C-alpha cells in the first residue's frame, strides 16, 4: 500500500518516496576487522557500491588496532575490481604531534610517508609507529572524490589521528591523487606488516 499525500508518494513498497527529503550521507557497507590481513571494498561485491552512484565517498576508520607493534595503517586503490591494488599516486603528508610527557610538539611535512608516482600503499599513520598497546589505535576520515571519473585523476583527502607507539598523539593530514583516468572501483586497507587485529571501517556515499 502506498501512502500518497497531496499527489506526492510518501511511502511505497517499504521505502520512502523520492519526493521525501532525506539525509544524503548513505551508509553503504561496514567491515569489521578480526585478525584480518586486509579489508577491501570492491564495487559490486558484497553489496558495495563504489561507482558513479555518488559523486564522492567517505571512509570512516574507527579504532583500527594492529596485531604488530610499530606499523603503518595503509590503503591502496584498484582499477580492475580488486585484482590488483597498485594505482600510481602522488601525495602529501603533514604531521602534528605531541608527546605525553610534553617533551616534543611540532608540525612538519613528512617525507617518510608521502608518495611520488608510486604504486605503494599510502600510509594514514606515519613513521611506521602505530602502537600495539591495548588502548592504542587509529581513527581516520577519508574523502574520495568522483572515483568513477574517466577524465580526471582521483583526489582524496584524509585526516587521521593515532596513538603513536612512543606515546605521542599524532594528527596526520594526508592528501593527493590516484594518477589515473581509469575508474577506481575498489579500495583496500591493511597494515604494512601483520594483521588488522580489530577495528571497523565504514563506507558512505554522499548523495544529492
Amino acid at each position, binding site marked *: 500500500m502506498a501512502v500518497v499525500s497531496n499527489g506526492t508518494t510518501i511511502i511505497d*513498497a517499504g521505502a520512502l518516496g523520492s519526493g521525501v*527529503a532525506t*539525509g544524503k550521507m548513505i551508509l553503504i557497507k561496514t567491515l569489521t576487522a578480526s585478525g584480518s590481513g586486509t579489508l577491501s571494498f570492491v564495487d559490486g561485491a558484497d553489496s558495495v557500491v563504489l561507482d558513479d552512484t555518488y*559523486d564522492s565517498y567517505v571512509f570512516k576508520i574507527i579504532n583500527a588496532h594492529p596485531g604488530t607493534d610499530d606499523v603503518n595503517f595503509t590503503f591502496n586503490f584498484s582499477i580492475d575490481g580488486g585484482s590488483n591494488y597498485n594505482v600510481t599516486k602522488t601525495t602529501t*603528508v603533514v604531521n602534528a604531534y605531541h608527546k605525553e610527557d610534553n617533551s616534543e610538539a611540532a608540525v612538519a611535512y613528512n617525507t617518510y610517508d608521502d608518495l*611520488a608516482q608510486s604504486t605503494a600503499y599510502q600510509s594514514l599513520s606515519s613513521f611506521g609507529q602505530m602502537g600495539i598497546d591495548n588502548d592504542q589505535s587509529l581513527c581516520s576520515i577519508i574523502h574520495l572524490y568522483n572515483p568513477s571519473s574517466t577524465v580526471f585523476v582521483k583526489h582524496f583527502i584524509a585526516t587521521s589521528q593515532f596513538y603513536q607507539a612512543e606515546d605521542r598523539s599524532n594528527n596526520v593530514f594526508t592528501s593527493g591523487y590516484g594518477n589515473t583516468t581509469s575508474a577506481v572501483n575498489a579500495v583496500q586497507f591493511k597494515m604494512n606488516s601483520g594483521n588488522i587485529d580489530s577495528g571497523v571501517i565504514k563506507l558512505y556515499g554522499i548523495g544529492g
Partner: protein
Amino acid sequence: MAIISNAVTIADAGAFSVNLGSMVHIKTLTASSSSTLSFVHGSSSVVLNSTYPIYKFQFINLHCGSTEADFQVLYTTDGSNFNATQTSTFFGAYHAESGAYSGLSYYSANDVAQGSTAGLGDSQSSNNDASLSGELTLFNPSSTTFVKHWIATTSLDEVNAANSNYTAGYVNTTSAVTGIRFKFDNSNIDAGKIKLYGIKDS
C-alpha cells in the same frame, strides 16, 4: 498507528522509524565555463539561513580554463554584493610527481586580512585530467552575534604535483551571511560541480 509498508515499519509513535539522516542536500551547481558559481539564500531553491546551523559545500572536479589558477571564496550579506570582509589563514603541502621537491608552507599570497576574497586553492593546473576537489564548512551563517567561521580543505593538481591546501577564517561581520560565491582568479570554472548541504541537528 504505525505505517508499515511491505513489512517494513516506516513510521510509528509519531516519528519516522527509519533514519532520515542529518546531511541534507540543498543544491547542486554545475559549471560550464562559468565565471562564478554563487549560492544565494532564497534564490533558485537555495537555503542559507537559520534552517541549519552548519552548511557544507563539496567541490567535485573543478576544472579551470587557465593554468596556475587560484580558487577563491567571497561572501555577501545583502545577496548581491559579494564583498563581506574576511580574515583567513592558508597553508599547504606540496609534492612533485618526480619527487624533486616537497614541503609545507604558509601561503601569504592566498590568505586575506580584512579583504573580500580568500583563497581556497593555489595554482591549479589546466591540464585535461587536472581538477580541484574538497569541501568548505560554514558555521552558523545567520548569526547576528558572532563573526562567521569557515574551514576548507582542498586537493588539487599543480602541473605534475599534488597540492593539498588547508584554509580557514571568518567573515568579519555580525550581519547574517546570505550568499557565497566561488571563482578562479584568472579564468572561468570550465567544468565541475559544487554541492550545498545543510547539516541537521548539529
